[in-house]
């Protein structure tokens, strides 16, 4: 699945230089940092950049996985292998624990992505993180197009677009009040294509579900979903075997697979360039809930 590593194009080198600066700025400005890590390609790339930013020393912060419990087993295995291989420190905040304690309620549609916000905000508070790094990109979605690289969050983790600081030149201001924290987005300026080209050029390992494979799926709302305890397939939905891959990785209940023959990174780049849908439009039910669903979730403390 991996192509031979090659040198970076000038464009990717520009992006990498910027991301390394942001990661080192975060490490220099904050006392306790977590890197949000889902095993998805964007968080894997941020982690890889962090390893490069601080080599030969260890990455000076821990990984935080907000686990919905609706995981692809391949992704959890990938996560655990990566931790084993790199010596990274991993903390897991399980949505299930909040449900068991009665602090969160399961939604009627079974989707747990929106339920991640409370465990995330509470873990930040409990651990005393003053900065949380994430793999959000501005090209993903319209609300994210307005996000800062250093984004101030209030005591409740909330994002107020009108309160964001202007970011001038490449001077990043991490100043904040006690109780507030800063979300830092080192790959803000990367596109989906940039991510894949970088993964190819740097020979980065990914969970295998990003590449075309045979899978038992059923169709719902125009997406191919994998069966699981979370509530699928329902009556009337039939399982069938298709050759698919995932363009994004999230909660199983709302992340759809796309029909695909792309088994290498080059195939994937070709597929993206001819796709008529954005990655979120193609595969994320949580973004289809409404035109402003990302804006609303960010205001509550979501990434």
């Amino acid at each position: 699945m991996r192509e031979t590593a090659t040198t970076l194009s000038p464009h990717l080198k520009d992006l990498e230089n910027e991301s390394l600066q942001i990661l080192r700025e975060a490490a220099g400005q904050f006392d306790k940092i977590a890197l949000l890590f889902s095993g998805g390609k964007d968080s894997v790339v941020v982690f890889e950049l962090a390893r490069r930013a601080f080599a030969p020393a260890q990455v000076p912060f821990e990984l935080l996985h907000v686990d919905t419990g609706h995981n692809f087993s391949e992704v959890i295995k990938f996560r655990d292998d990566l931790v084993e291989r790199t010596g990274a420190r991993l903390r897991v905040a399980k949505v299930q624990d909040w449900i068991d304690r009665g602090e969160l309620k399961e939604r009627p549609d079974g989707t747990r992505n929106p339920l991640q916000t409370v465990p995330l905000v509470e873990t930040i508070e409990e651990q005393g993180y003053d900065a949380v790094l994430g793999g959000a990109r501005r090209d993903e979605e319209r609300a994210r197009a307005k996000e800062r690289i250093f984004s101030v969050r209030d005591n409740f983790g909330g994002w107020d677009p009108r309160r964001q600081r202007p970011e001038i030149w490449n001077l990043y201001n991490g100043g904040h009040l006690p109780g507030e924290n800063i979300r830092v987005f080192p790959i803000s300026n990367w596109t989906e294509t940039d991510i894949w080209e970088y993964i190819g050029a740097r020979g980065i390992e990914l969970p295998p579900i990003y590449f075309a494979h045979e899978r038992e799926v059923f169709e719902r709302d125009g997406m191919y979903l994998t069966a699981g305890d979370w509530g699928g397939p329902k009556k009337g939905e039939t399982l069938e075997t298709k050759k698919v891959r995932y363009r994004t990785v999230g909660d199983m209940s709302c992340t759809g697979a796309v029909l695909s023959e792309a088994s290498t990174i080059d195939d994937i780049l070709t597929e993206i360039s001819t796709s008529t849908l954005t990655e979120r439009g193609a595969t994320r039910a949580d973004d289809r809930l409404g035109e402003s669903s990302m804006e609303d979730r960010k205001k509550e403390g979501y990434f």
Partner: protein
Amino acid sequence: MTVTSTEPSSEILQQRQTLHLCTAGSVDDGKSTFVGRLLHDTKSILADQLSAVERTSRERGLEHPDLSLLVDGLRAEREQGITIDVAYRYFSTARRTFILADTPGHVQYTRNTVTGVSTSEVVVLLSDARHGIVSQTKRHLAVAALLGIKHVVLAVNKIDLVDYSASIFETIRDEFVELARSKGITDVQVIPISALLGDNVVNPSEHTPWYDGPTVLGYLEEVEVHTQNTNSENSTGFRFPIQYVIREGSQDYRGYAGRITSGEIAVGDSVDLGQERSATVTHIDSSDGALNIAGVDESVVLRLSAENDLARGDLIAASDRPEDTTIFEATIVGLSEQSLRAKSKLKIRYGTSLLQARLVGITSVLDIDTSTEHEAQTVELNDIATVKIQLAQPLPIDLYNAQGRVGSFLLIDPSDGNTLAAGMVSDLNPS
């Protein structure tokens, strides 16, 4: 050898593959439509995004899809038909990759324009052919000039609404070129466009046979932009503010991580560490392994010959390292609703340093409409002012360079960490 080259290497002189640009215009100049058109005609818009636009346009009873809906991000904006804040867009052609900062025209125009312009190499201003150059156009141009932008495009929009009149276009063009020259901007391109109909944005127009220049995209693909200004006689030498010290005990490794803000560095070069200390660069470590040479904007780790206790905030520089300074003059732009007064206690972020500072005095505030300066007691949001700043500890400070990589700083509220102003060092020996 103690010579540190200030000549950019041929690699740095290469045409940049990535172009950072910023768009600005006043309300109703059709800027969102222009950006939507640019994205649409470069095939950067996918079917799910376009169908959402078509659906909303139909619901509003519009005849054509309203391409501005592609870029108006937040619900509050869509409901009010305005743009609140700087948004970033990405598109590419076979020739180049573009990162576009889309800045709104009405509220807090200076603040947002400064933000967009500060990361850009090219500024695209929009004007309405029916109204020509308005005060907003002049303000945006003044901000671009202030930050040292070298390439400006004026897109004269809605040319269809003046019947594709060559004479109206030429009047606006001549006035704008003259205005830009007076502010020291020499690479100016004025282009007649209709963002709504697509004339001369990406595709050349059949309706403007009297115009033989490039389309907006054509210009952006070809414009020559270099990271370092090679023409400048007094170009700044190597500057490397330390971001982070990397230590690894088992390998006895101690390296200084940062991003080169000026000049270049080679293994074997001598560097000035301040306080009469110097060292030789023994290794340049990077994401691509060991390098022999590295240039501006590269993120690298330097290892030095001599034992030293450098830390985050310290500067590694070439032999033209600036003297340590505690007082300097600067041009600042007010970015906060909180006004700045003389004697205010502040924090300053300069390079990777963060220290206490004081606004000693406000020399003058610029009236951008008349280009005249007047006295003032405070610096308000969107004001451009000349001020004197005193630092609690001496710092090696450079004059501002056009790339904003050296001589640029933020003034920060010490009570809550908010950014109050952006500044450019203008005089190191103020009277």
